[in-house]
């Protein structure tokens, strides 16, 4: 008994030290006042630094995700809205709101506690300019027997540019997924004195005018740094090709040089970034361009609008999708010039993605618009070794399906891969020894209780 107790004590201390070290790994380099760090009910956590800049306003950096009972995992070196185009249907002028005006400094709207319910207001330049809060979301999973509600961290700031109010928002979910979005509110900016204008609509109560339709083109810049190295992320493109019998085969191609790519709705084209290898099981993120019912293309004046997704080498002076040289004179002017066939192999890579929204004025837009939202999701993949927050119970349908393929489904398959409480970090071979201590510890406990160690204590 004494030996057993000694082993337990040593294992407990080992686990404690491991967890303590893991937390230390997530320490952020920014001042405490610039840190955002939250933990969700499922045990997962997000941490990051924020900064406010004159042009982009909110820039998030050093963002890490920490699954429950696992070590922090680096995800992003930086995140920002990189350009916001507004093009009115009656003219050939495109406004570059980020570089012509800016979203930071005097453009930031002061927030009130009502704007940030149960959240934290953060001071920017002497006024409340940023809010972060945790929200309840819809179910993260739902089976016949078990379900769990998701949570998210929202970080947002509001900028007033002309008559428009932009709500620049980043949502970080408790499974590791991230959703950038922009809400556009405020008031309609431009009208025509021709109430019969073919470029807009006449609205009620405003004689002699029509209000002009326009496009918002949002571009986000994401500098991924997955895992422990910034230079081993792999970006690939996935297409599903239909054969003559109706089957759809996945074709995944790795990008080795900088690229500019367009959506391909018929092949459900998507893009993946993985840590170390473009494999199914490597931690990474998937971008599916589903919010692309609109595409703003202007090949004549802005050739880069022909593309929706870009991969470039990380370069600090490549900040803005357009009008970049205005603030970075030693650098190229636009995103298409950044894409110049440089090799991505063994380099720090940056992803850029755009979403277009065409705004047709309606009566309700006068005088204060209801916010209309656009964005996309970066879906976390394999950052958790199994469904986060789930009991681990395997459903009969899954056991039967596994049995049908000849797999022995009598034993919980998750035990067979030895990844019961581990985390992301890639393959099983890279999992932390500290977590194996936890597994061993649990086995010891189970031996003491049941006389054997079979199955990783997953409730069935």
């Amino acid at each position, binding site marked *: 008994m004494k030996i057993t107790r000694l082993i337990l004590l040593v294992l407990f201390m080992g686990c404690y030290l491991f967890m303590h070290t893991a937390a230390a790994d997530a320490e952020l380099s920014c001042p405490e006042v610039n840190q955002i760090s939250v933990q969700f009910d499922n045990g997962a956590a997000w941490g990051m630094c924020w900064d406010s800049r004159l042009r982009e306003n909110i820039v998030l950096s050093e963002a890490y995700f920490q699954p429950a009972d696992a070590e922090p995992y680096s995800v992003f070196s930086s995140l920002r809205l990189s350009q916001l185009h507004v093009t009115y*249907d009656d*003219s*050939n002028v495109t406004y570059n709101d980020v570089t012509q005006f800016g979203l930071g400094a005097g453009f930031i709207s002061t927030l009130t506690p009502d704007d940030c*319910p149960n959240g934290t207001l953060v001071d920017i330049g002497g006024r409340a300019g940023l809010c972060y809060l945790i929200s309840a979301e*819809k179910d*993260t*999973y*739902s*089976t016949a027997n078990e*379900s769990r509600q998701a949570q998210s961290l*929202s970080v947002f700031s509001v900028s*007033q540019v002309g008559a428009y*109010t932009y*709500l620049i928002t980043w949502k970080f979910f408790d*499974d590791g997924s991230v959703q950038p979005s922009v809400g556009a*509110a405020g008031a309609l900016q431009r009208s025509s004195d021709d109430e019969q204008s*073919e470029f*807009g609509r006449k609205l*009620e*109560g405003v*004689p002699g005018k029509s209000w002009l*339709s326009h496009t918002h083109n949002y571009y986000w810049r994401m500098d991924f740094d997955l895992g422990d190295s910034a230079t081993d992320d792999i970006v690939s493109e996935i297409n*599903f090709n239909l054969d003559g019998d*109706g*089957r*759809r*085969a*996945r074709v995944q191609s790795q990008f080795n040089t900088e690229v500019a790519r367009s959506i391909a709705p018929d092949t*459900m084209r*998507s893009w993946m970034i993985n840590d170390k290898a473009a494999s*199914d099981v490597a931690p990474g993120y*998937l971008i*599916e361009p*589903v*919010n692309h*019912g609109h*595409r703003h*293309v202007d090949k*004549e*004046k802005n050739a880069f609008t022909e593309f929706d997704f870009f991969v470039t080498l990380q370069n600090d002076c490549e900040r803005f999708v357009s009008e970049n040289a205005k603030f970075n004179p030693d650098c190229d002017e636009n995103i298409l010039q950044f894409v110049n066939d440089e090799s991505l192999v063994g380099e720090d890579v940056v992803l850029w993605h755009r979403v277009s929204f*065409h705004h*047709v004025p309606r*009566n*309700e837009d*006068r*005088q*204060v618009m209801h*916010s209309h939202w656009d964005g996309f999701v970066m879906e976390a*993949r*394999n950052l958790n070794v*199994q*469904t986060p927050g*789930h009991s681990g119970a*395997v459903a009969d349908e*899954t056991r039967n*399906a*596994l049995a049908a*393929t000849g*797999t022995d489904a009598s034993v919980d*398959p998750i035990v067979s891969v030895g990844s019961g409480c581990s985390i992301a970090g890639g393959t099983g071979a890279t999992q932390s020894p500290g977590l194996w201590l936890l597994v061993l510890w649990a086995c010891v406990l189970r031996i003491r209780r049941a006389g054997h160690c079979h199955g990783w204590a997953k409730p069935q």
Partner: protein
Amino acid sequence: MSQRFYLLMLVCFLAAIGSSGAQASSSCMPDESTASGESSQILFERSYDSGARWSMCVSIDDQSGLMVGQVHYGAPLNELTKVLDSASIAQILFKYDEDTAAQHWLSTHGLGAANQLPVTAERCPDGQIQAVTDNVSMCVREQNLHALTSLRNSESHRRRAVSLHAWSAIDGFVVEQVWEFSEDGLISPMVRLGGVLSRFSGNDNYSSDIALEQRASHATYVSTWKLDFNIGNTPDNDIVEAMAFIPHQSTALRRVINVTPITTESLHKVNREQFKGWLIRDRDVSSGPDRDTRIGYYLDPQVSGFAYASRTDNWSVFDFAVSAARECEKLASGNARHQPDCGDSLDDYVNGESVQNTDTVVWFSTARQFLPKKEDYPALLMRESRFTLMPFDWTASTPFTPVIE
């Protein structure tokens, strides 16, 4: 905002609350049988401090699951006005990528009856469990959408929404049906796919390694909704228009609005470069003094980034369809199995008949890919398909803040 405005809002709100029950209940009788005779319906109402209100009937259909009917929206300071006669999910085609044919979930299995999952407290956290029939309940959730509406130097306004949820089990999958109604009149139908993995494959082209001993199969699915608009409670005078924004001959950047009434039953695809959308509006009712506009709802296919492909179900490769309303045309496919005297699919319903001066139904589809990952074991992380119907010229100006010229 002036005190006078607040007072006006309060008076109108109180007046509206006092009359809303009678208006809505006149067309939604609890326990009234539906056309199929298989389910009953309840009255559901919600009102907000702003004065905005929703009123509708809710029922559970054996095939379509959660259905809403007699849907009325009242903007602040405005009376309740009918939007939809009925709306429901009308088919989910689910096809494993290695298969040659899709499964038609609603017609083969159905989302109601024995496939309806009980709504437990765990499934409805922070929500209210509300009985729809003696045996079936739904979950009602209130949400703060954290969607500010603001203008420099003015107050901000937060938007709230109520959503109705029901869950069904099909072959290990769980289909969550959601209808979300926001304070400012948006309607967001959703299908959320969950459950558990129930198919594995050895073929790398059609499956993903998820660190089990077998690879999980890929799939594609398309969700189709049926929306029977009845704007202003005059079913025969709704007009469906395709709105496109055509590049001007002088430069591609200038775009001319092009409105084309859809006058016959037809199938349509999105046009991403022309920003095509569809407006369903009343022919006569205007919200403004000038009568330049008519009240309606706009379906902007912003979520249509993916296109479905099928060799057997022609209708499913289209995003939008218009048909004349027929009670027996309930499902987008497999309909004749349950309605033997009716057409089998949208390909049968859409046959060039006129939709002018008649009750019109629109159908909308959106496609998604299912690519399994480690987190999908033992339970799938939910995948969501949704779209939004937006009130369009429903009021003469925003009903939430006073107009200052």
